[in-house]
């Protein structure tokens, strides 16, 4: 990430608000092509993440990068989040961080 270049917490629903901007999201890996990952967002919708995924990725991966459409992210930073991750908590954080508490984040 760049200095003072914040990344917004997104799920599939929120991704469209940030097309062209830096975002972060947690994806459940469904298919790994080597050059991209086809996954499920925290609100159960499918997203494509392009870049250089970790090898091997764990069940959940956090990606940080630029949203290049409302269904895909060009990821710069990938972090394996393991196999046990509370998706619903993360999803709630996404909603709050873009809603009532936006002023704490972006």
């Amino acid at each position: 990430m760049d200095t003072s270049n914040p990344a917004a917490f997104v799920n599939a629903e929120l991704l469209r608000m940030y097309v062209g901007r830096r975002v972060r999201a947690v994806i459940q890996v469904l298919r790994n092509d080597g050059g991209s990952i086809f996954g499920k967002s925290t609100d159960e919708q499918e997203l494509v993440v392009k870049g250089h995924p970790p090898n091997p990725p764990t069940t959940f991966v956090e990606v940080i990068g630029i949203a290049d459409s409302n269904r895909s992210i060009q990821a710069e930073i990938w972090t394996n989040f393991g196999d046990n991750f509370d998706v619903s908590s993360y999803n709630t954080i996404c909603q709050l961080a873009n809603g009532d508490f936006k002023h704490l984040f972006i």
Partner: protein
Amino acid sequence: MYGNNEFDGSAAFSGGGFMPSQATQTADPSFSPAKNREAQGLLPLTVKQIREAFQASDDKANILIDGVSVNNVKLVGLLFEKTERVTDVSFALDDGTGRIDCHRWVQEAVDTKEMELLSNGTYVKVHGHLKGFQGKKQLIVYSVRCVTDYNEIPNHFAECMYVHCYNTRTQKMQDAPQVTGQMPNPAVNTPSKGCQPTSSNYHNVDAIRGIDKLVLNYMQQPSCIGKENGVHRVELAKQLNVPEHKILEAIASLESEGLVYSTVDEFHYKSTANG
């Protein structure tokens, strides 16, 4: 999680160690957040909160966030630009809301070992003291540890929101001393509702409580207690002159508190009190 009003999450939790103790906090007109030295807790924050407070503050040595004096802070983010020197290690912490420079003084082997384990691009949780140095903000870090369970990351941000909510409500309460006797009810019960620390919220709650109270009072009359089948909800609506859907809401909320129960069918209700 803790949806029941009976469970006073704020007292049971005391904010997980983040809040100043309850005893010093509530309804204390002489409470002055900036000077209360006993309440030097640990604040979970985002870098954005720190940056804004720092820029807004004239006195860089004593920063206030949401009315609380900032001393010890907790941050969670990615570690970058790690630079090891003889007596200290510096790095930048990026939590997605901004970047902050951090310094960790290494005096003993234990400290050096702690820092050696960390590499650029890993998630860490950091505890430190916020300091202004030559006009720039810096974090003097006491502890840096790797995040092992990644649920800590949304958890940290949830804590930031909660503490922000709690402190802004406390601030509002101090500004409005006529709203006495009401415990700040932090958004522990339903995080998805978010925090709306406006005084109009109190009025809404009172209005709902008012109808619940009306219904409960009616049902606790000896004549109603005496009736084996309880009171029909249509009778409640007629007697109290309240629309039936409001009666239904009141009954649902009283039922969840364990104050009323349905008897022969879902139209008849009785108070659980023995009169």
